[in-house]
């Protein structure tokens, strides 16, 4: 047996007791390497000490408690799922109506915007020469003249009535 095999046996002793054959092999090796015996004994004693650790006590109903906890989780999940569905059913028609109203408003705004653009386009394309228009001073007495014209019409109407 070589050193690698010895290491392998030490590793195995960490996990379990060696078999009779493994033990015999190790004894053979230790007979030719007596200086390693103390180290081996210490390794084995440590492995046994670690293996001798007692199990932590477990309640007899542990498994049923786990299954109960799983049931509660599932019930909780199912309730959440139902709650999500309920909200979905509540919100879906409202969301649909809101979307329809928004769509109508959107179309109306779009149409108005399009009409406005078309009108602006038409005005821009009119063949008007702005340089030939009269100066704004010409319209200074526009309101007074306009009122005179309306007054004249009223007088003419009265005269016409008198003549008739």
């Amino acid at each position, binding site marked *: 047996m070589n050193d690698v095999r010895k290491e392998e046996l030490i590793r195995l002793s*960490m996990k379990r007791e060696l078999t009779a054959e493994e033990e015999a092999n190790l004894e053979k090796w230790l007979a030719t390497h007596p200086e390693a015996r103390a180290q081996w004994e210490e390794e084995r004693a440590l492995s046994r*000490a*670690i*293996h001798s*650790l007692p*199990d*932590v006590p477990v309640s007899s109903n*542990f*498994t049923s408690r786990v299954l109960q906890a799983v049931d509660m*989780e599932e019930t909780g999940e199912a309730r959440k799922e139902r709650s999500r569905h309920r909200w979905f059913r509540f919100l879906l028609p409202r969301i649909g109506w809101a979307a329809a109203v928004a769509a109508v408003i959107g179309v109306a705004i779009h149409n108005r915007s399009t009409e406005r653009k078309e009108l602006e386009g038409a005005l821009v394309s009119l063949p008007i020469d702005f340089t030939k228009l009269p100066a704004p001073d010409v319209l200074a007495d526009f309101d007074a003249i306009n009122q005179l014209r309306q007054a004249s019409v009223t007088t003419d109407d009265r005269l016409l009535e008198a003549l008739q």
Partner: protein
Amino acid sequence: MSAELDPDAALMLKVRDGDRSAFETLVEKYKQPVINLVARTIGDPTEAEDIAQHVFVQVYKSAHRYQVTAKFSTWLFTIARNLSLNELRRRSRHPASSLDETFADDDEHPIRQAPDTRTFGPTEQLLQGELEARVEEAIAALPEKQRTALLMCRHEEFSYEEIARVVGCSMSATKSLIHRARETLKERLKPYLRSGAWRED
């Protein structure tokens, strides 16, 4: 790894398909090692059952995501370790729940010191109890990663590779963790290991 090689993975695939009895089988099989690991990680056997319960509930809830990429036990112990560490972090944020314990994540420093429970009695039972307490105390004083690796190493079913996955280290680092843990224990338990019986320092 295929489910044919690991019967527990095959059971877990059944759990994924909604088989409750397969889940029950897994709980029955692993409750003891999981509670052992959790109790020795958090240093509180009474709280260990509650955390172990969370571990198994987590397993059930995660069943639909389960992929057979490693042994089931590796996955299970990873969850158990993570939830135990979460509990330690929670306690460190709320020290009122564990006034007598201090925790640290630093692998080079012990997470806690177990109380000195030495008592001396004439009977063999008392001596055995004393020896167990000494071993428990020495293991509890190890840094968390060393302790977890060492405790997993005593199970024949865990290879170094699987232990490495659970503690989140490379395989060589895991071997080193186990070696350092054993060296520390040999030093602390030397009188017992050499004589086979307790001897005071």
